């Protein structure tokens, strides 16, 4: 084997990708050629340093949650732009979406006049659905309650509870600011398998019927909503999760400190 042949095979040799016969030839050549032996040592060191130094990333929880949400909603599969769809078409699609949202808000405005309480729930459900669209899930993405809670300081005038419920299978995903009834409302986002749970936290207005410790449950468009009161705050949990598990979540959330 010549030096040139050896150099050509050196990377594959270092990577253990050479057939046994070739590897034996390279080994033999290195043993008798000081220059190629030095080359081999340098190359092995380079490969090791690159491998040891470069970071292997972990997919963020929010990304996993977004994908699970998308998988759980067959509509989103059809809605995903096929490869080659131009950006303009996508913008048009989003424009249409904006009109749809605007018109649904109009509808809510009409409904609100009839039944004030129902309209809040509707508004919260539609805000929850809007948030499931890519990029809108969380403003602060963190699985750590000590990152999420302070994020709301100065953004809203109440301090929402952010309990850690990891141990019972409701990982914290993050938080965001939403608008409900023309107010900025903190939303805490949790996960459950492929489902997402949004908790809307608003100051108590006194017109709610639940006493401390009581909950009211309802359903809208396939989403479950559970409302309760706690320490002068009015809370609503919204999710496509089944009712019993959402109740379990609310129990843990309101019981946790």
């Amino acid at each position, binding site marked *: 084997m010549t030096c040139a042949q050896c150099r050509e095979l050196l*990377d594959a040799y270092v990577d253990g990708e050479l057939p046994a016969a070739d590897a034996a030839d390279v080994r033999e050549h290195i043993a008798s050629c000081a220059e190629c032996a030095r080359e081999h040592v340098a*190359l092995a060191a380079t*490969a090791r340093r690159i491998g040891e130094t*470069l970071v*292997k*990333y972990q997919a963020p929880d929010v990304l996993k949650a977004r*994908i699970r949400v998308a998988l759980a909603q067959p509509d989103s*599969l*059809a809605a995903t732009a096929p490869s080659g769809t131009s950006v303009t078409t996508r913008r048009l699609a989003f424009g249409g979406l904006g009109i749809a949202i605007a018109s649904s808000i109009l509808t809510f405005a009409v409904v609100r006049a009839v039944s004030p309480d129902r309209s809040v729930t509707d508004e919260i459900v539609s805000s929850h659905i809007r948030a499931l669209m*890519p990029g809108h899930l969380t403003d602060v993405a963190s699985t750590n309650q000590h990152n999420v809670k302070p994020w709301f300081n100065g953004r809203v005038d109440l301090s929402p509870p952010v309990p850690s419920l990891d141990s019972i299978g409701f990982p914290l995903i993050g938080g965001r600011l939403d608008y409900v009834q023309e107010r900025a409302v903190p939303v805490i986002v949790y996960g459950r398998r492929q489902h997402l749970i949004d908790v809307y936290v608003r100051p108590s207005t006194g017109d709610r019927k639940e006493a401390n410790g009581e909950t009211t449950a309802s359903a809208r468009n396939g989403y479950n909503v559970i409302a309760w009161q706690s320490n002068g705050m009015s809370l609503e949990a919204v999710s496509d999760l089944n009712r019993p598990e959402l109740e379990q979540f609310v129990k843990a959330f309101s019981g946790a400190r």
Partner: protein
Amino acid sequence: MPPAPNDIDRFERIVLPHLDDAYTLARYLLRDPHEAQDAVQDAALRALRYFETYRDGDARAWLLAIVRNCCLTRHNRARAERANISFVDDVDVAHEGRATDARAVEQSERAALQRALDGLPPEFREVIVLREVQGLSYREISDVVGVPIGTVMSRLARGRRRLASALGYDAREAG
């Protein structure tokens, strides 16, 4: 045709465990955490739509090939929209609280390597990441990238030599 629930279950079992790898590849190819997230989400949904074309085999390489295509699509679109692609630095890596001396050295080496890697042409960068970060075999890399094994070998060799010379690992190894 929307996929059947069975298919989704199977998909979650077979493909979703490789999301970390998918995200790692996208991070290195696109050099931006948000773009990378969007690309992986695109890729996951596209993978589900083409799941019937997946035959039992290497699910990771199959998914990575789709991720790579989604990254290329985004990259080309971004290039068409803006003349320049913003260079996103390794912010995540650098934000690690108080650094001890050893850690500072380690981080500066990491930052230097990251810069050198970002400076490589994409066809070298992707084989380096697939091999050195994700540990794929030449055969798997050849499947993901869609080039013969010989090409994988020569790109990897040239990529390593460029990195080594950019970092001063070995002065004789220019080229």
